[in-house]
């Protein structure tokens, strides 16, 4: 357990604005082991981006507030770190890349200088330029790119620059928040291949956050599925994708496969994405769930381990003493 580079336990985070409180994360637990690739899947309102930012202390200090739980990075408790303490941690051992590289790059600074900026913190000044060259090579960008401004590069190249900045300090964990959402599908494939390559070369763990099940399935060993600020299913990627237990995960997969029912209609999850302003004691998915039981509305189920320990789910239908559908699922030994 102490080998975990990122350990989040029971994290509850609220946003307050004008007297109203939004519970963005509710008792979320997540861990990433050294060198592991973990995926975090969810839609809007799931809290996945908030979780990514909280892991690096990037949630706005004035309006967000950690109500409970803790975050540990490489064993250190960073839950209530100050800005100065965070400055030490960011870049090394944890770095982050975001969705839209154009917003995260300084438009009036050449990209070489921006990479150099992040490298300079940990490297003696003479070694900075060669290190920038090295990084550009690692992300497969031509060295001439260093002299370009962000707007002169394509979307894929900009994302590679962000990656170069992120790995500049040799992080042990890279958090990638929707890194390919803004990119074309062919560029996306290249960036995912690059991420896999970087992980291999630098022995770097990765937390890949996305709403796209495909890329998470391809790139990750373990995954977490989030809904309305809670983790509702998690486990080995193979187990969760092949035998999803939670109705939401099932719905997501069927939608991703474009399954059709007997009517020719696409199988989909009805209803609207969750409204985080309304807190409910029960399962937040219950209003949209075709298999909801009475207790789903009144209390949130605890985690149930299935599949020989490879998969855990929070769903009343998956209790051992509920319908035999759960027994079937539990009986599916790997």
């Amino acid at each position, binding site marked *: 357990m102490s080998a975990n580079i990122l350990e989040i336990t029971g994290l509850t985070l609220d946003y307050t604005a004008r007297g109203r409180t939004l519970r963005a994360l509710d008792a979320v637990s997540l861990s990433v082991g050294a060198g592991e690739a973990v995926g975090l899947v969810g*839609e*809007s309102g799931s809290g996945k981006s908030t979780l990514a930012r909280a892991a690096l202390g990037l949630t706005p200090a004035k309006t967000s507030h950690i109500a409970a739980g803790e975050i540990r990075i490489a064993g250190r408790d960073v839950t209530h770190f100050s800005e100065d303490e965070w400055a030490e941690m960011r870049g090394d051992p944890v770095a982050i890349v975001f969705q839209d590289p154009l917003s995260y790059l300084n438009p009036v600074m050449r990209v070489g200088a921006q990479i150099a900026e992040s490298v300079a913190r940990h490297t003696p000044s003479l070694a900075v330029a060669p290190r920038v060259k090295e990084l550009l090579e690692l992300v497969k960008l031509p060295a001439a790119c260093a002299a370009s401004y962000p707007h002169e590069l394509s*979307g894929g190249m900009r994302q590679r620059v962000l990656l170069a900045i992120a790995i500049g300090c040799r992080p042990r964990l890279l958090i990638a928040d929707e890194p390919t959402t803004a990119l*074309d*599908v*062919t*560029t*996306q*494939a290249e960036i*995912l291949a690059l991420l896999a390559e970087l992980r291999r070369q630098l022995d770097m763990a990765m937390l890949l956050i996305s*709403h*796209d*099940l*495909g*890329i998470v*399935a*391809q790139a990750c060993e373990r995954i977490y599925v989030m809904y309305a600020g809670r983790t509702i299913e998690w486990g080995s990627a*193979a187990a969760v*994708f*092949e*035998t*999803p237990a939670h*109705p939401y995960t*099932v*719905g*997501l*997969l*069927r*939608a*991703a*496969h*474009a*399954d059709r029912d007997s009517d*020719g*209609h*696409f*199988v*989909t*999850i*009805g*209803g*609207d*994405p969750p409204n985080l302003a309304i807190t409910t004691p029960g399962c937040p998915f219950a209003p*949209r769930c075709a*298999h909801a039981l009475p207790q789903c509305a009144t209390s949130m189920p605890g985690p149930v381990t299935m599949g020989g320990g490879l998969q855990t789910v929070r769903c009343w239908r998956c209790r051992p003493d509920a319908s035999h*559908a759960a027994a*079937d*699922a539990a009986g599916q030994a790997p």
Partner: protein
Amino acid sequence: MTASLLEIADVSKTFKRTRTEEVRAVRGVSLSVAAGETVALVGESGSGKSTLGRIALGLLRPDSGRVLLDGQSLYELGSRELRRARTCMQPVFQDAAAALNPRKTARDHLLQALGARDAAAVRRAVELLDSVGLQPGSEYLPRFPHELSGGQRQRLTVARALAPRPRLIIADEPLSGADVSIRGQILNLLLDIKRASGIAYLLITHDISVARAFSDRVAVMMRGEIVETGPVGEVLTSPRHDYTRRLLAAVPALPSQRAAAEVAARADR
């Protein structure tokens, strides 16, 4: 031979980026959509597909070539005839929030699209709202766009598109930006409309799986040109052009279909 509903004939459009630099967004593109047909125009960013969509809608005059709607050449019509002719072709855009006037209620949008404000028009507006899943329609009439969720806004834009009883809907990335769970709902909505009224669709998308799921024919666009067209089954299983092959290969694969089918069977029990 049935005449096509929409015929794009050898259309080109070039934009001047600076005084010397120009971008050839669309180069000699020809495409047709027959009545009742669903054609998917697939391409990545920079392919020119959105520009082609706007040309097809009559919003952007091409430098050369013609756009024929029901046999009439759109850009050769006088402005009054154009205004009359174009209502049989309606758009659905990607960003539903930008596609709605923030100061107008659903009622205002629909009555404007219907071109009337009498009681019969209001009844028809309520019917339209019901037909797109915003039920009861009467409750949604007084709402402003910011009072609706993303999925509801997109449904409202579809309702507005249906109001003038078009024969063709040109949808530019109607599913991008929507959650996976909402995408299925919108696809089903478009499917129901197609079944109920035999509307033709020109679906512009970067997501080849949407094309696979929904269309009859597909045209693949790259850097301003159409590199491959054909029935969707053929093009997606045995693509002839290298770019199509690359596009298909780049789509990340989900665990096997068979496993998913088992899952589906279990979940429905």
